[in-house]
């Protein structure tokens, strides 16, 4: 049985919602743990927002002056370069590094606006990676980055969908994982399976980001809430990202959502998730439903739009 029914789970008294207070008044999160931290962003199911999350986490880290290398481990269908607006600058990949056509530092594409953000693609879309050491590629890359003169604070690996060779390659060097899921049953089943595989591989630090949440549907009980998702997976929450039309716009523009000005709800949620990731923190309270605003006393001129 993959999921326990909600009602059978014992409800305990929760800890107080102290996370917002801890963050209040500061301008940057405190980096926790030794660097570089190798984080794989995975989901199992496709289309839940892995690449969007990776791009935004990386951009947000770079905005916080924490150097990050975003690795697109999707050998066949890479998209991270598009989301970061770097598609025209990727000429060398990890496959070229393996073949000895370039060095690793030459294959890293530095973002023009965010100097602390670098991108590494595993291979070009129509090229093939050598089979013999495909699974070891990212382990070597992460190790080489760790040994570099200026090692990055974070190595974010965008994992391909599924649990085949691409997944195996992507999770190989990871120490912690961000599991992205949407509040629907298909994504949850895959997320649970992926969480199981990650735990079998020794990755115990797994946090979930619940993406594309619609509070209005949650309120009408047409969608699972983030708390429901958490109860089903039994994993700490890193963030809850609301459904936002700006995601499509930012994807098409090649500018991560967290850089949007004015900020967007999804961008802010991803920024909050980044802060928690940096501090190895988890959510202590979630916004579950929209409250009705107290109605104002209607005046005489309210008829006119007042």
């Amino acid at each position, binding site marked *: 049985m993959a999921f326990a029914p909600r009602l059978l789970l014992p409800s305990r008294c929760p800890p107080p919602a102290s996370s917002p207070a801890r963050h209040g008044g500061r301008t940057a999160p405190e980096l926790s743990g030794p660097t570089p931290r190798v984080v794989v962003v995975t989901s199992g199911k496709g289309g839940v927002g892995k690449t969007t999350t990776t791009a935004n986490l990386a951009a947000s880290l770079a905005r916080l002056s924490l150097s990050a290398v975003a690795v697109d481990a999707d050998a066949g269908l890479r998209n991270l370069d598009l989301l970061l607006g770097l598609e025209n600058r990727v000429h060398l990949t990890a496959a070229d590094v393996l073949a000895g056509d370039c060095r690793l530092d030459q294959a890293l594409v530095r973002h023009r606006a965010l100097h602390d953000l670098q991108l590494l693609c595993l291979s070009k879309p129509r090229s093939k990676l*050598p089979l013999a050491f*495909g699974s070891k*590629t990212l382990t070597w890359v992460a190790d080489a980055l760790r040994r570099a003169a200026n090692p990055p604070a974070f190595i974010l690996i965008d994992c391909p969908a599924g649990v085949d060779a691409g997944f195996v390659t992507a*999770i190989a060097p990871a120490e912690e994982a961000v599991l992205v899921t949407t509040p629907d049953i298909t994504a949850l089943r895959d997320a649970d399976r992926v969480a199981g595989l990650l735990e079998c591989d020794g990755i115990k630090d797994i946090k979930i980001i619940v993406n594309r949440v619609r509070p209005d549907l949650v309120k009408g009980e047409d969608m699972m809430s983030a708390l429901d998702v958490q109860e089903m997976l039994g994993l*700490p929450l890193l963030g809850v990202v609301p459904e936002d039309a700006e995601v499509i716009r930012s994807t098409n523009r090649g500018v991560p959502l967290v850089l949007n*000005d004015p900020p967007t709800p999804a961008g802010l949620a991803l920024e909050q998730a980044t802060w928690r990731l940096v501090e190895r923190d988890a959510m202590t309270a979630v916004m579950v439903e929209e409250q009705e605003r107290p109605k104002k006393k209607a005046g005489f001129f309210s*008829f*006119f739009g007042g």
Partner: protein
Amino acid sequence: MAPASVAVSLSFRVVPPRPCRRRARWPRPIRASSDGSGVANGDRKVGALEGRVGDLRAVVASVPPAVAAIKKNIGLNFIAGFCLGITLLAAVARQVIIRIHERDNKGSVADLIRRGQLKSGQRGIAKPRVYDDPFNNPLVKIDEDTSTAQVFGKEYRLAPIRLTKEQQAMHQKRRSRTYQWKRPTVFLKEGDSLPPDVDPDTVRWIPVNHPFAAASTEVDEETAKQNVYQKDGVPSRVKAEHEALQTRLEASNNVNKFSSSQRNMQLSDRQLRLSSNESSGSRQNSLSGTVKNQNGQPTLESEKRSPDNNSQSKSLEEQ
């Protein structure tokens, strides 16, 4: 909004009746004509007019006075209807004014930004981001006392997380029971034979059309690893290619040098022989005229030589 609506409603001023500049129209005096028939006609007209006036007075007398009628018929319904009518009229007028105002502002920068045709950020009139903390800024307000959060103008209730460490451990146990997995470390193409020293549990079989299923690799594992770890200098393959090219170039240069020196030697020998044995037979000349090219194929020396050796060719032709 109330003051605005007041202003809007007051914008309609009641126009006072203009004082009439024209001379008041008084009933013209009926002129009496000078002739007798005229007198008779005039009397008849006056009589008819008086009759009409009398009729009018009778009609006026029969109709109850307007004030009295209003006093009699006016009620709450009339007042409510009147007010409603005025209100509707004012609302319609307000909408008209707003539309006219919008039409006046069309094409302005503010209007273009509102319609999304212009990015406000590029115009320097956008409000900059005024926060560094995503948990506490003008767009996100968290009130812990009431457990509410105001995000982008909407209020949400904050529900505390219910997951405990025990529940987390329980889920981990469940998953470890359900998914027993060992990460594959060896990738093999489907159809390949399993090497004898490889554990079958650690093998991942890759379909032929997979991006990892390259037919063969030009570098071995150790070289690939060194390539990844290389920090500076020329990349190995580029270096190897360069060295190979250099070697080939040197080799070709050597060959050119060798071939050119060999040819020069042969030419000098020939010249010596020619000079020493000018009188010798043509048979000997024909034998010395064959040399070998770079590929070792025999060629006639006369074909390559300049046309100044006409004597040799002539002697051959003569034979």
